[in-house]
């Protein structure tokens, strides 16, 4: 039996932590229906008007779409460049490997603003105009380590022998990747994509300095929060939480189908 310790104490503590995590989210949700100009007490009554306002707010809708666009771009970048990096780190010894690993991990510990300022200086030097793409490149660099660490950990766990067996049976590089490596890392890769997208979707620090004329959702909210705050802000956040839950659950169920295969 795995469980030990005072069950009711552990459960109570765990539930308190969950309550701590969800209290502001519940407050946020409740006040998205508040029939008042302000997102605070008193609660004047139930209304959908902030959701209606949201769907008429072109700036808000555009920035949601911009965030999705940037997030998808970040996912593509971190898969295209992160998976090869993870494979290189897993399979080969090469000079400078330790330094390469540190450089890759650096954006995790670095304040986003620092990544931002370095890239902004670089963009200004090469006269690259700030746009959604400059954000994408910045976030892609910062979040690539998520893909690299997740995929690397899975590759280490999988071991070498399946790939060796495939090579031993005469498979070429592409056949080994398609039949062994990719099926092995699929669920880890999916998880990394999910995490990279969700962090990108809510990213402010790197984005802050790299934004041109088009704003992502957090940047729009940031400018709103510094001026006047209406419950429309709560409505946006609430809507996104529900959409994301649906997406995550659907995605996890889709990927769970082949999750038990790697046990073998």
């Amino acid at each position, binding site marked *: 039996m795995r469980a030990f310790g005072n069950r009711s104490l552990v459960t109570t503590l765990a539930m308190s932590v*969950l309550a*701590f995590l969800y209290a502001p989210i519940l407050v946020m949700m409740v006040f998205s229906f508040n029939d008042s100009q302000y997102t605070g007490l008193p609660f004047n009554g139930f209304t959908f008007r902030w959701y209606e306002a949201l769907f008429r707010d072109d700036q808000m809708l555009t920035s949601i779409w911009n965030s999705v666009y940037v997030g998808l771009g970040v996912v593509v970048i971190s898969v295209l460049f992160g998976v*090869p990096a993870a494979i290189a780190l897993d399979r080969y010894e090469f000079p400078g490997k330790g330094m*390469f690993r540190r450089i890759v991990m650096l954006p995790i510990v670095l*304040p986003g603003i620092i990544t931002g300022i370095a890239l902004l200086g670089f963009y200004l030097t090469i006269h690259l105009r700030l746009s959604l793409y400059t954000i994408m490149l910045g976030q892609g660099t910062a979040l690539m380590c998520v893909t*690299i660490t997740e995929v690397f950990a899975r590759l280490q766990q999988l071991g070498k022998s399946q790939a060796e067996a495939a090579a031993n049976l005469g498979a070429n590089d592409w056949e080994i990747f398609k039949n062994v490596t990719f099926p092995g890392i699929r669920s880890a890769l999916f998880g990394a994509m999910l995490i990279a997208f*969700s962090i990108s979707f809510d990213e402010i*620090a790197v984005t802050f300095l790299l934004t041109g004329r088009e704003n992502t959702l957090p940047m729009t909210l940031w400018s709103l929060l510094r001026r006047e705050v209406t419950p429309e802000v709560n409505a946006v956040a609430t809507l996104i939480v529900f959409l994301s839950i649906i997406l995550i659950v659907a995605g996890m169920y889709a990927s769970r189908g082949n999750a038990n295969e790697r046990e073998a």
Partner: protein
Amino acid sequence: MTTIEQTVEIKRTSIRSARAIERRRLFLWLVPPLAWFTIFMLIPYATLLYTSLGHVDDMRFIPGLSLDNFVRVFTVDPYLSVIIKSARIGLMTAVFSSIVAYPLAFYLAFHVRTQRLKFLIYLLVIVPWWASYLVKAYAWKTILGSGGILNVGMQSLGLVHEPVRLFLYNEFSVDMTLTYIFTPFAVLSIYAQLERVPTSLIEAARNLGADGWMIFRRIILPISVPGVVAGAIITFSLAFGDFVAPVLVGGPDSVMISNVVINLLGVAFDWPMAAAIGLVIISLGLLLISASGWLEERTQTRF
């Protein structure tokens, strides 16, 4: 004679060289990410270095080879004190989130009985990521502010007569907000480590007569250290670089290092100074990675 030489020649070329292929493969996998990190990290850092060695005169950048800006980071107020303060906030956040995260990770790893419930709770840990950071931080204001839910509630219960202002606009409220925001990272990190503990270990300990507290203190806690360390590094780093919480819930003097950098760029146009601070923090970051790698290696339990 010629025919023999020819057959030898053919035999040689018909065999591909494994060593050459191995080198080509490494090249193939390594070059794209290496190129990416060179272009989007190393070259920008080099640009940063170039900028930091110059200075600004009358809003114009003058290139130079002076280390003045680096000296200023450590000698001129408020740079060093703000870095130290940011580190202190980062440390408090790391400590608080480890403490808050541990019971939930523990519950998830040892007390959840069905896979379905485990999946549900795991999901509940991840979902807060999706609720906008800004809106969540703002929601704390709604709860903790002088006209907020907590104060109104306490007043209506007669616990206090005046609104308590202690909860907001000070360094502690920054610590708490950041702890709240980054705790899920710590939960996942500690959980991943606890999940590795073999069930047989607990059964063996119980079989030897250990009670729950002893199992926790002597077995589970030491094993969980690398997970706690990994989570603490992430929460520390995220909190250290934050600039939103000080603006939303911090007091008038609670600027952190990222706010200083933003002000240097946006208000003072002092790029070289900002670049110097950036490089100092990059060096500190590299140190932190090396230290954390060493620490996790040292504390890791092999099964």
